[in-house]
């Protein structure tokens, strides 16, 4: 039993941490968030050069062949810097679907451009009515000779406006909420009939609604097996949940560290406010929340890499805990920073808002807890 990182993982962690510290300071992050695209392609190119974009991909396509622990290491450090570039959307979702479900031709054509930084991707899976239920798909894909014609609208597509390539979930059979009958299609973002409306989220992300007006793609653009897309999505989302939790852990660690530092320097009544027991105990509580969330992250990542029976339960439990601990930690961070905590200028609120968005991505606490309960008690 050990919870240590390998030498390689330590190097990877240090490389991301150093980059975030030296090249992604707060002013840089603010400037990127306020830029037109909300991301910095030059920085993305550096990520490619440093090898971070290759981590989950197979070696035959130039990938690093990493596992969930490697991804966790990267996401935790990216979280600490609130990095805006679309690692989740491009590498883990778009790339993850291709890696797990693409055929060899698709993989050979699409994965190298992810790794070299030239292609940005997005996964369009949500619809207006679907809330957290990924199987709730009304968008249709109708066979037409050697083609499929897609019609419908996808919403809140992460990195949707900047993406060069989209993978879209659409119904090829079955009823609106059936898991069976969903298929995935690779669509160039500039294909005829694709209409994108971009907007900003509170965490600085650019997302888009994507309208599909009879978009025609060849049947060879089908990713994975027709009608069996849900299974593929579930496998990719499972790993994405871990990655998001790791990002959240990085954020929580920053919030606790910044708050602790602040209470040691901020003086009121002639003393540092950190000398007050009422505040000390609250910071002990947030320290414990962080440690507990980190423990479940380790539990889930071990369950996933060891392919343990209860891996699905462990991941739902983790997402419940991340929501609970996250709200606890950012709530206290804002409160202990006093008036400054509610300013836009200070980074604290931005860390909070990213945690809030993470806690809506692929299901909120209630969603995950209901799934956990059903698996465990029914």
């Amino acid at each position, binding site marked *: *039993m*050990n*919870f*240590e*990182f390998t030498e390689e993982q330590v190097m990877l962690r240090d490389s991301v941490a150093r980059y975030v510290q030296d090249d992604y300071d707060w002013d840089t992050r603010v400037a990127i968030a306020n830029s037109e695209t909300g991301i910095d392609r030059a920085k993305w190119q550096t990520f490619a050069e440093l090898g971070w974009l290759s981590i989950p991909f197979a070696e035959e396509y130039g990938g690093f062949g990493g596992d969930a*622990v490697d991804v966790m290491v990267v996401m935790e450090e990216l979280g600490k810097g609130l990095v805006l570039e679309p690692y989740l959307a491009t590498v883990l979702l778009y790339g993850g679907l291709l890696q797990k479900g693409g055929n060899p031709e698709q993989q050979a054509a699409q994965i190298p451009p992810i790794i070299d930084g030239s292609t940005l991707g997005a996964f369009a899976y949500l619809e207006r009515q679907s809330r957290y239920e990924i199987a709730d798909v009304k968008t249709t894909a109708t066979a037409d000779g050697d083609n499929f014609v897609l019609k419908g609208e996808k919403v809140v597509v992460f990195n949707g406006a900047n993406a060069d390539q989209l993978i879209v979930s659409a119904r090829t059979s079955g009823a609106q909420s059936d898991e069976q009958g969903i298929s995935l299609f690779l669509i160039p973002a500039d294909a005829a009939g694709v209409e994108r409306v971009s907007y900003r989220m509170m965490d600085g992300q650019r997302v888009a609604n994507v309208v599909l007006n009879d978009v025609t793609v060849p049947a060879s653009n089908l990713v994975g097996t027709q009608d069996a897309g849900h299974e593929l999505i579930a496998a990719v989302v499972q790993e994405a949940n871990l990655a998001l939790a790791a990002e959240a852990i990085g954020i929580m660690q920053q919030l606790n560290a910044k708050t*602790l530092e602040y*209470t*040691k320097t901020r003086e009121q009544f002639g003393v540092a406010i*950190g*000398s007050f*027991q009422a505040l*000390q*105990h609250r*910071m*002990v*509580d947030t*320290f*414990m929340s962080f*440690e*507990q*969330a980190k*423990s*479940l992250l*380790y*539990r889930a*990542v*071990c369950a996933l*890499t*060891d392919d343990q029976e209860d891996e699905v339960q*462990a991941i739902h*439990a983790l997402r*419940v*805990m991340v929501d609970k601990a996250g709200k606890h930690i950012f709530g206290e961070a804002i409160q202990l920073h006093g008036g400054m905590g509610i300013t836009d200028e200070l980074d604290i609120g931005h860390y909070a808002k990213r945690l809030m968005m993470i806690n809506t991505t692929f299901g909120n606490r209630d969603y995950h*807890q209901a799934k*956990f*309960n059903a698996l*465990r*008690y*029914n």
Partner: protein
Amino acid sequence: MDTAFAPEDIAFREEVCAFFDSAYDDDIDARLNNPDPAVFQPAIIEWQKRLFERGWIAPGWPKEYGGTGWDDTKAFIFETERASRGIRDVIPFGLKMVGPVIYTFGTDEQKERFLPPILNSDEWWCQGYSEPGAGSDLAALKTRAVRDGDEYVVTGAKIWTSYAQFADWIFCLVRTSTEGKKQAGISFLLIDMKSPGIKINPIVSIDAHHSLNEVEFNEVRVPVANRIGEENQGWTYAKALLAHERTAIAGVADSKRTLEMIKHYASQEVNGGKRLIDDALFQQRLSDIEIDLMALEFTDLRVLASVAAGGAPGAESSLLKIKGTEMQQAVQELLMEVAGYYQGVLPGGPEADVLGHEFGTRAFKSYMYGRAATIYGGSNEVQKNIIAKAVLGL
């Protein structure tokens, strides 16, 4: 990063399971869980003697003093297997508290005199730390020991003394000096409970039981030879004792066991024609606890792994104590909810088949006495002070 135990540890676990399977039976289980002290006390001694005969009575002790010589991982495995079977822990005062102080700081004569009857459970110990005026502020203790030739004359009172009514010996912190810092004038004495001048006043606790006592000392004469280490250095020895317990302090395996019991009973209890376990609100409460416990189990393992790799367990013990006791109370509370009306049945009434219910009194006892867990061993607020200072640097 992986969670597999080493092959030798897995083999060890099998050995432990085989022992419990053969040595622990329904008969001893019933007697150990009997709330009547007249039944419970001889039963725990009998069980401890079985562990002693197997050589496993003192997992934390070094081999040369009769311990197992296990590392932290093996001790953890043993504790986990014990707790997951619902086997109650040994009485800690001799085996987990004073024993380690004696073999660490005692003289050869003291080791020879006191260690063997602790190991074979022939002598029962109790702990004299807290006083009516010294709880969380333990160093404020006032029981004084005045030197008179080869003896100390001890006068004062100790409180919350568990099982003093059964004890042959008590280990005490006493004041031998009022000079300097309050921690500096404390000595560590071993006192024979049959000494003239000792009076035990029972305290009935909130669970309607008598395990706690106040112990009065009225000019009790104690040989100087019964002092551990140097005069006025007792605080140092007591602190070393507090750091001794580092694995299984969170009681995760015990809480998991209780949680399984809750699921078992909740699938039998019926409310409005529906099994309690199928109730969405109940499931939510259950998983709130279960998810926290899944996390704590790994926090425990993380501390264990760092200790096994040579790291020093520090303030993590405080974290485990706080979260562990919070979880214990959470599962006890939920068990009470499952018991419904029967949570209020006092012990000593009719048997379960007459009563119509089998676990209400047990739920009551564990819930009510369980309130003590966040108070004893350094209250959780004191533990938070420790973390604030040692981890957060405040």
